[in-house]
């Protein structure tokens, strides 16, 4: 099992603790993405796995071996850096071969490894070039080539796509995924971009303030965020959150806010919360825009329509807070400006505790 285990990992800088006991099991061949806002400790965690930061407390195990005090080079991991760290004075072939030369591999091994890696990454025609003469995407490939060539047990990626423009990022994202499918090497990938996390990960680890908020497959996290932080971090645009008071009408629950009544699912947990505030989470994609005359719609004040082509974003105000709806343009393009409210199926609403921000029990949907 060449997985990676983190056991209560803590990182302290002097008196300041920045990572507070992270536990994580990364299975062999799994692609795990650590995602979170800047300063959440994701990069520090990755660097502790790499051996570039000392581990203040806890244990890191790679392939069944505790590596806390093992030098980075002996951990059998390879890392792709945000700025690629390509040596400007070496050409592509020498950049790729750098690690092999340091490890005194034979000339034949080095030559065949370069050929193989260049073939995989489509760099064969660029082997003689210096990094300065390469495009952003090519540099990115060289950086990956340098990691691949050593055939490590684990790949570590530290925001590898953040220096690329949007189009190239999409393209390289797919390439990284294909590469992983092909090589099947355990990978841990750090990013602040939730789209990268959603598209690349077998499992996503959402981090915040040095702690893990939630671990799960992308769809699990998208559908069943455990708290409002995860709910607002994943998804674009983020989940709308509205504070509502729970009331019971007959055997049904409704959320009441700003003169609106929103039917809620029949959760056992809600019984005890009648009369209390909860946070109602509504994904922009899940609502159906309504025009005048639609019954039981939640009224919004439409403010701005942004058309993106196949879809449109309706920016509105609801209970004095911004509310966003993602609408299809294929059917009702001309009517978007007439939208007066929305309807949503109760089971698509995610309800969080008004004080702890944790999701109420019993509402998870199968991902």
């Amino acid at each position, binding site marked *: 099992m060449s997985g990676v285990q983190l056991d209560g990992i803590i990182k302290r800088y002097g008196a300041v603790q920045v990572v507070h006991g992270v536990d994580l099991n990364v299975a062999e061949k799994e692609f795990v993405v650590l995602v979170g806002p800047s300063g959440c400790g994701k990069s520090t965690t990755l660097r502790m796995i*790499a*051996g*570039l930061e000392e581990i203040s407390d806890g244990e890191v195990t790679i392939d069944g071996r505790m590596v806390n005090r093992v*030098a*980075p*080079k002996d951990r059998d*991991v*390879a*890392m792709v*850096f*945000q*700025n690629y*760290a390509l*040596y*400007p*004075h*070496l050409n592509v072939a020498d950049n790729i071969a*750098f*690690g092999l030369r*340091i*490890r005194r591999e034979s000339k034949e091994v080095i030559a065949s490894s370069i050929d193989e890696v260049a073939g995989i990454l489509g760099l064969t025609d660029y082997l003689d070039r210096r990094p300065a003469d390469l495009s952003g995407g090519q540099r990115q490939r060289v950086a990956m080539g*340098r990691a691949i060539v*050593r055939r490590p047990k684990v790949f570590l990626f530290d925001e590898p796509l953040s220096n690329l423009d949007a189009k190239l990022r999409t393209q390289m994202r797919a390439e990284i995924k294909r590469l992983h499918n092909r090589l099947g090497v355990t990978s841990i990938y750090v990013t602040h971009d939730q789209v990268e996390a959603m598209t690349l990960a077998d499992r996503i680890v959402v981090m915040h303030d040095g702690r893990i908020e939630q671990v799960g497959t992308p769809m699990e996290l998208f559908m069943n965020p455990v708290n409002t932080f995860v709910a607002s971090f994943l998804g674009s645009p983020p989940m709308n959150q509205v504070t509502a008071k729970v009331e019971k009408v007959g055997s049904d629950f409704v959320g009441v806010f700003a003169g609106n009544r929103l039917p809620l699912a029949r959760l056992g947990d809600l019984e005890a919360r009648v009369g209390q505030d909860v946070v109602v989470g509504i994904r922009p994609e899940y609502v159906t825009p309504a025009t005048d005359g639609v019954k039981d719609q939640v009224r919004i004040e439409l403010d701005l329509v942004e058309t993106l082509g196949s879809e449109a974003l309706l920016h509105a105000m609801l209970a004095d807070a911004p509310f966003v709806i993602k609408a299809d343009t294929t059917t009702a393009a001309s009517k978007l400006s007439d939208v007066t409210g929305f309807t949503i199926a109760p089971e698509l609403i995610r309800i969080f505790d008004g004080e702890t921000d944790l999701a109420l029990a019993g509402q998870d949907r199968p991902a």
Partner: protein
Amino acid sequence: MTNMNLYSPGDKVFVYLCMFLISVFALSTLYPFIYIAAISLSTGFEARAGNVVLTPVDTTLAAYEYVVAQREFWVSYRNTFIYTIGGTITSLLFIIPGAYALSRPHLYGRRFWNLMVAFTMWFNAGLIPFFLNMRDLGLLDSYIGIMLGFAINGFNVILLRNFFEAIPQSFEEAARMDGANEFQVLWKVYMPLSKPAIATVTLFCVVGRWNGFFWAMVLLQDGEKIPLQVYLRQVIAQLSDDEEFTATLLDQAYSVETVTAAIIVASIIPVLIFYPFIQKYFNKGIMLGGVKE
């Protein structure tokens, strides 16, 4: 704007005025060199009479012939090359690894070691204790004393350290993950990445060594070991007092003035040869050594 087509007439006049002032300054910089070269190529009589202004009068190579016939001239010339090359190599052997170590954030006691370097720039014991120390170390009248005794200069260390620090940490980290040890990181990654800074420090060392005079004068008594600058000083100071020499002058084409000028020209020539190379780097270097932590 790279041409003046779009300038107003007033601006054009202003620019020409600037160019005029620069020309005046440049010519007054250049003139003393031309003057000294002209003297070195004139006859002793004309030089002594003050008739040389811009070009050689009664052109002769007599002064140069006299100079190149002096054994001491060649000995001191050779010594200067020894001190310059040997001293610069010595300096780099100390400074490059030292500055690299000081630039590493994870170096234990880093603040203390850096302070130890910086303090030498703020406070030094002065001429006498330094001289007594060199004497106690047995480094008077010694090639090694000159090359080793001035190997490190805090400014150069800090200049190079700052450059190393500015290289993104990920270069070191990538190399370390590839299995490189600290020596390999320095040799294979940081030194190639720091060529301009190393060239600048090398340049400072070379210029300092080539021009070094005071300590060579103080520490070296042996005429076989003195560098060109000390020899030149001796010529200037002694030639005119040397009765034997002055006596030989009457029927010669050279004079104290032309011989001094010839030695000056001879010791400027190597500087002029390397000057284009020097120029390429010092612009960058002064920026590197500029005002920054």
